[in-house]
């Protein structure tokens, strides 16, 4: 306790000590801290350092719903200051990655998706059982701004009221598969639907629009792939699930990286799930070949929710793949290129471990006989196939006829190098531990 002379005027600096600071500082928010209270002077700075760790505990409790989560907790011997700091840094990381995903996706798409990033100062969320999910929703903004779930149901077709971010699109035959990053309202709707039909509470974060398919975050580690693992399930057979990633942060970082290195095909003015070749990266489901200046790229994509696995219920396994074929004049081709036209296709489809392929010969591709000219355009089309095992491959050639030049009328075969019919790198299929045979009826 200070004893002061009658003449000196008492100031805040004279009054405060660590004990009084511990009463005062909890009335201030993180934003007050950020705006610089910690550097008013050396005394204030010292209040926020290790001695006042409980202030950081208070700030943590204000910022996040729980003190610990199955995927995030304070370490033994760790200060609240350190725990708060790395927790808030995770929020910032999610924000940087999500903002980057939005920007890069919009850059390559004709249709811009806007309003999906929350302000830095707008961070309140509902309670979630996973830290990463809670933090992601501090960052993800729902453009529909749904306050009450009941509003969604009252409209009839609830897809119309909901707004979700399209990560990528896969189109083939009559199918258009849009993979959505779910808003908090959409998560609740889907959670409710799944709970009604399956009697379990899940946290879906991705969903294929209009299909009975979701990717859930495994907050209870039911699937034994780690807390928070991304588990893809749905379609006609739930006896197996596809593990897509370790956790939400990893998944988004991977998506960000792929966008950054232009790994998603986007010449159709939207992000598609088919891969582009990437310098220095081996992608087994992708092949590139150049013959006589014609470059043919082929990329296969496994569609989990079109596949069936359970031989106790189905006569045969079916691993379903869609593939995209892209035909163009090779950008590195020097000199003249004489226009040519695709006339026939020849495919050899190998099942894993078999040396005898299924052979398909036919005229044109999907009923078309495209002209290939040196005009920078890419002719692309999609088709699909399925196999009874993973790890097969497709290869073949397209025959072309020269339409111009010295060789007019002559034909040649442009190779399609083998590309694998297998799961994307880093994913795998596992038996669904919570599967029950009645789920086949869903």
């Amino acid at each position: 306790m200070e004893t002061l002379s009658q003449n000196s005027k008492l100031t805040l600096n004279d009054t405060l000590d660590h004990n009084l600071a511990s009463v005062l500082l909890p009335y201030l928010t993180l934003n007050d801290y950020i705006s610089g209270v910690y550097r008013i002077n050396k005394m204030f700075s010292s209040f926020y350092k290790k001695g006042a760790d409980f202030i950081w505990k208070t700030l943590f409790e204000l910022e996040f719903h729980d003190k610990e989560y199955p995927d995030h907790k304070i370490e033994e011997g760790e200060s609240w200051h350190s725990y708060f700091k790395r927790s808030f840094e995770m929020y910032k990381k999610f924000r940087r990655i999500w903002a980057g995903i939005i920007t890069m996706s919009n850059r390559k798409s004709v249709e811009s998706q806007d309003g999906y990033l929350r302000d830095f100062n707008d961070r309140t969320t509902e309670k979630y059982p996973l830290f990463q999910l809670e933090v992601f929703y501090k960052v993800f903004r729902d453009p529909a701004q749904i306050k009450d779930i009941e509003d969604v149901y009252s409209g009839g077709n609830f897809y119309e009221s909901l707004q979700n971010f399209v990560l990528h699109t896969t189109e083939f035959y009559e199918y258009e598969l849009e993979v959505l990053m779910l808003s908090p309202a959409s998560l609740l709707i889907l959670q409710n639907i799944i709970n009604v039909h399956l009697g379990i509470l899940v946290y879906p974060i991705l969903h294929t629009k209009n299909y009975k398919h979701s990717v859930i975050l495994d907050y209870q580690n039911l699937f034994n792939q780690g807390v928070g693992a991304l588990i893809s399930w749905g379609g006609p057979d739930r006896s197996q699930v596809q593990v897509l990633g370790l956790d939400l942060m990893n998944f988004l970082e991977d998506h960000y990286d792929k966008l950054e290195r232009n790994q998603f095909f986007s010449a159709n003015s939207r992000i598609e799930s088919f891969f582009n070749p990437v310098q220095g990266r081996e992608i087994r489901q992708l092949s590139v070949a150049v013959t006589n200046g014609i470059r043919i790229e082929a990329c296969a994509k496994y569609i989990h929710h079109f596949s069936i696995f359970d031989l106790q219920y189905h006569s045969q396994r079916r691993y379903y793949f869609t593939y995209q074929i892209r035909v163009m004049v090779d950008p590195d081709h020097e000199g003249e290129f004489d226009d040519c036209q695709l006339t026939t296709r020849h495919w050899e489809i190998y099942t894993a471990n078999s040396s005898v392929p299924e052979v398909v010969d036919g005229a044109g591709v999907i009923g078309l006989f495209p002209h290939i000219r040196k005009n920078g355009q890419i002719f692309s089309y999609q088709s699909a196939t399925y196999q009874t095992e993973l790890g097969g491959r497709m290869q073949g050639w397209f025959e072309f006829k020269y339409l111009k030049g010295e060789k007019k009328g002559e034909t040649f075969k442009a190779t399609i190098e083998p590309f694998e019919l297998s799961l994307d790198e880093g994913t795998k299929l596992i038996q669904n531990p919570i599967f029950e045979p009645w789920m086949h009826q869903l």
Partner: protein
Amino acid sequence: MSKVKLVTSEGEIVEVDIEVASKSVLIKGMIDDSGVEEEIPLPNVKRNILQKIIDFCTYIKDNSPPEIEKPLKSNNLNDVTTPWYAEFVNLDQEVLFELILAANYLDIKPLLELACAKVASLIKNRSIPEIRKFFNIENDFTPEEEAQIMEENKWAEESF
């Protein structure tokens, strides 16, 4: 009702109802130990400050204490507590600080919290130069030190 005698820093004796004075945990302890016959010296508490304290303790005898939610939602105490309490701490800085020190010494938690909340409301939403000016606080960081400490706290800021 029985009264207890409190002696201010100026040497003045003030008689206070026991029930009111017992709002101070320190005073209550002394009464429990030695009874009310002895005068209780408060060498660090001036007369005017003691009067404010008596007013507060009298008020909370019959009213619920100010329960100010942490952290403050705004820098206006009228948004977070009753008009009486908000007005009670509408004081000159010097008086406010003396009140804090006295409430701390006498261990009167609701008063200490109210007064600190008032100080917090004066800090909140002010720029750092304004805070220094308002409270007459000297910035004792060198420019290098201040730059260093800002760098250490970059993790908290919006980065884009």
